[in-house]
């Protein structure tokens, strides 16, 4: 009888109870194996699972874990030679006083701080816009998603035409009586790259939010309608609450993508851009060129730590914000 109720629970996925029931099946399965067969069979089963995991896990070990241990070693010693001396956090200290690193970190952080919230908010706006009943909805969806498929290298030419000192935007500005701006060689450069970033990433984020909106229980919204809730209140009190896991994910995703902005900058402005565009990857590239393993390793570790801390922080916020919603 008990197993029967469990099976019915399994039939409607998506609730918290199912997760428990599912892991329960796993546990039951394991118990069954344990009781029916002996130790030998269990070992065999374990080995089989290992066989399947092996190719991927060995690769990950070889290309990420083991070398990362070497990276840690480099970061803590004074040279990559065999007779390296342990120097503790000296390399980190040196890195922290390095002007190029400081500039790169500052630029990357300001860029992320501006681009990530913008891309989250605008993506929500786009998703809400496409949620309303308008004609040609799926066409618009494809249009918004299309930049994601276009390689950055292909459209930087147009970007240069738009934002050059003699470019279209300045023509427009001068026509309306403004003063021409040297977009790529001034503090506006970050703005140009933010625009490119948004252009590229909004579609993907929008799709994520659309599926998030789709998962909100319709009854809840209808109930709110009956009670006479305004659109604004519905958005704030219901939709956003249900979207909070999506917001978390999109924020993390945008954060990762904002670290990849080097690609756009490199293709737009080359290896030596205006200093406002000097990103962490530029710094890394220079270090690769001079084969400065110590600085490279220290920088990689700092970034990994910063990333982990940021993500943990975001998870905590999400837990607090969406705690009363069963997602």
């Amino acid at each position, binding site marked *: 009888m008990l197993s029967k109720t469990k099976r019915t629970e399994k039939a409607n996925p998506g609730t918290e109870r199912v997760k428990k029931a599912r892991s329960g099946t796993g546990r039951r399965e394991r118990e069954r194996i344990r009781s029916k067969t002996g130790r030998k069979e269990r070992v065999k089963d374990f080995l089989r699972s290992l066989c399947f995991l092996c190719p991927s896990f060995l*690769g990950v070990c070889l290309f990420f874990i083991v070398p990362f241990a070497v990276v840690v070693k480099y970061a803590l010693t004074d040279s990559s030679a065999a007779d390296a001396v342990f120097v503790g956090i000296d390399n980190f200290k040196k890195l922290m006083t390095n002007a190029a690193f400081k500039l790169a970190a500052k630029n990357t952080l300001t860029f992320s701080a501006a681009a990530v919230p913008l891309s989250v908010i605008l993506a929500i706006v*786009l998703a809400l816009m496409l949620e309303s009943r308008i004609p040609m909805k799926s066409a618009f969806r494809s249009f918004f*998603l299309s930049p994601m498929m276009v390689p950055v290298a292909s459209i930087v030419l147009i970007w240069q035409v738009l934002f050059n000192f*003699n470019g279209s935007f300045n023509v427009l500005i001068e026509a309306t009586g403004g003063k021409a701006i040297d977009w790529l060689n001034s503090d506006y450069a970050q703005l140009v790259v933010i625009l490119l970033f948004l252009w590229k990433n909004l579609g993907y984020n929008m799709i994520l939010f659309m599926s998030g909106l789709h998962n909100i229980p319709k009854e809840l919204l209808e109930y709110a309608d009956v009670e006479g809730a305004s659109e604004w209140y519905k958005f704030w009190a219901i939709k956003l609450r249900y979207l909070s896991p999506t917001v978390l994910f999109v924020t993390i995703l945008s954060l990762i993508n904002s670290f990849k902005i080097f690609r756009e900058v490199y*293709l737009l402005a080359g290896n030596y851009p205006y200093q406002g565009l000097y990103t962490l990857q530029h710094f890394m590239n220079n270090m690769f060129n001079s084969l400065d393993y110590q600085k490279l390793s220290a920088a990689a570790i700092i970034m990994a730590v910063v990333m982990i801390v940021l993500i943990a922080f975001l998870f905590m916020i999400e837990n607090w914000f969406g705690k009363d919603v069963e997602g």
Partner: protein
Amino acid sequence: MKKRRSRRKNRYFSRGVMFLLCAVFAVLFLAPTVLTITNSFMTESEINSNYGMVFSTTTGGYVSEHVNLKFIPDKVTVSQYITGLVRSPEYLMKFWNSVILTVPIVFLQVAVASVAAYSFTRWRGKIRSGIFFFYVILMLMPYQVTLVPNYLVAERLGVLNTRWSIILPGMFAPFSVFLLTKYMRRIPYALIEAAKIDGCGEWQTFTRICLPQCRAALCSIAILVFIDYWNMVEQPLVLLNDAEMQPLSVYLSTINSGEIGLAFAMATVYMFPSLLIFLAGESYLMEGITHSGSIKG
């Protein structure tokens, strides 16, 4: 009655505004792509007179002072394509470089990931969920963190400056493992159990039960991986010193001012495969993105 009518009017009005807003956004999103494509059909002289001053440092006499952004070329020509694809083979070489870097990564990564995803789906335990969690963390790391380890390994293995330095780490990228595992966990466990009772071995269960079930997932993951690597710039810059082996994405940025028209044409050629995939597999792509949507669970 009157009130209801006005409310309906209101609704139509707000829908109209929404539509207009969407249309404006759509134009903004499409413009760069469309401009690149249409401009690739311009003659070299037209391109030069329109955009010459953007790309050349010295302004010649024949170019106007400001750019003249045009959607439709005065005279449609495919001469740029002929030059790029037939007369000067280096562009085709670079295009081939992109292909030979991306295609193996897509296939190998999906193959390796599907096996690993099966393992994560079929067996669960503390160790394996720990490993899975580690994959998630690794997936979230930016390039700057993973490139250094990759470089060190490539150097140790002696594959630095060869294609393998990019393909090998690409094979084991954790992203598709993560996504496929999430798909596979949706397959009812009873199905796997039934296969086992019917006498399927693990490998058979995997190839005959699991893989056919997630054919759509494999497609969408392949598309996502393809976009990611077709678009790559960082890895080749660091791992491939040899300019001969650089993919077209890197090479496109090194065009000189005399060949702007050619660059536009090659940019169009470069976006062609991914646009084609987009048109063919948009529903898969959409599904893939949707399922990547939550890290939890």
